[in-house]
């Protein structure tokens, strides 16, 4: 019976990698099972087909709201092909909570030069907490293929200087 020659160093690395995999899987399984942690971080379901009829994502409830603690809540809808309201304005260096839901299919929302980036899955509300550092106008871009107009799906985010 012939045996495959494996260099002892190679053998040690195989064990090391096997060990790393076991640790990472262990951590994931532990937190998924024991702490009920799973992506996306905000699991909140909603009926995407009925978004416009009532509640948080009804047409008149969209937009930017200033909270009592000085932070901002932005409520938006992603729908083929745009983000509504089409233009929003928030101050720089201020906590912003973005809540966004899809009216139709899978979308994504990404603001360049910021850490604002989330999937917008139909049937769920996506929530992101961030602070915009740089004043200026930025596009909000859809980064999940959503149909023929995907590469034209964007809206405008204006970040104003300083706290207001």
């Amino acid at each position, binding site marked *: 019976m012939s045996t495959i020659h494996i260099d002892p160093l190679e053998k040690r690395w195989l064990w090391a990698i096997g060990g790393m995999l076991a640790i990472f899987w262990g951590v994931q399984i532990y937190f998924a099972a024991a702490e009920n942690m799973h992506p996306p971080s905000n699991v909140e379901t909603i*009926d995407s087909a009925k978004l416009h*009829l009532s509640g948080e994502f009804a*047409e008149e409830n969209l937009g930017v709201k200033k909270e009592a603690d000085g932070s901002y809540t932005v409520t938006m809808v992603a*729908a083929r092909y745009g983000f509504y309201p089409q233009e929003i304005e928030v101050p720089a260096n201020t906590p912003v909570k973005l809540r966004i839901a899809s*009216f139709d299919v899978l979308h994504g929302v990404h603001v360049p030069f910021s850490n604002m980036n989330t999937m917008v899955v139909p049937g769920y509300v996506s929530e992101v907490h961030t602070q915009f550092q740089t004043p200026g106008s930025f596009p909000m871009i859809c980064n999940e293929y959503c149909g023929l*107009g995907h590469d*034209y799906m964007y809206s405008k985010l204006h970040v104003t200087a300083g706290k207001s």
Partner: protein
Amino acid sequence: MNNKHIKTVVGVAGLAAAMMISPLFAAGHEAAVAGKAPSTNVAWTAEQVRFVAQGDKTRGAQLSESLFCASCHGNAGVAPSSNWPSLAGQRAEYVFKMLKDYKDGKRKGSHAAEIMTAEGQLVTDQDMADLAQFYASFPLPSLPEGVTFDTAMGEQITYLVRRGDGKRLLAPCQSCHVSNGEGQATDTPALAGQTPEYFIKTMQDYKTGARSNDVYSRMRLIAKVLTDEEIVQLAHYYAGMTAK
């Protein structure tokens, strides 16, 4: 008097009443939808899509006769006058949604809308699904022979239709209404072969906000940034398009 006769009498009376009392209707609905109401009550849940799909086009044909739809929209859904929209080949979901929006007073802002709002009171949801399937069963209207349209801005308009205009946040028309103008699921309407006068009027109504039954203002935002000249040229572009 059989059922058909009763329907005819109701239809005639309804149409006459609609034309007489439509200003009253409009006033009533203005108050009803002002403020916090959604732009449409139609939500495309799976059940709603299935409901429209089960519409009976044969029954729709009978209804279209008793309600005298053809007097404005033509026998096979091709409008005899360019003031009225052709409905031939229109997406069933779109026709259903419009009938529902008229009935609920969500689509208003013109005399024609007032007539349709009154007509809407005469039909049930099932009637709407049947009528929608009836009109969807025809092919899209094609350009009458010998008719041509001004296409002075041909290249610019084709560019707008195919590529949009990023500076104005304009997605290309064809990303929703598709390249042969036949519309798309669920309720994006077909535009191919539509009468230009009606197309222009519709876009102007979106522009001024007179028409506001587009969820999240999606069409109003587009119409607002189009120039009057572009609207005219787009109307000609789509009127001259023979859908495959």
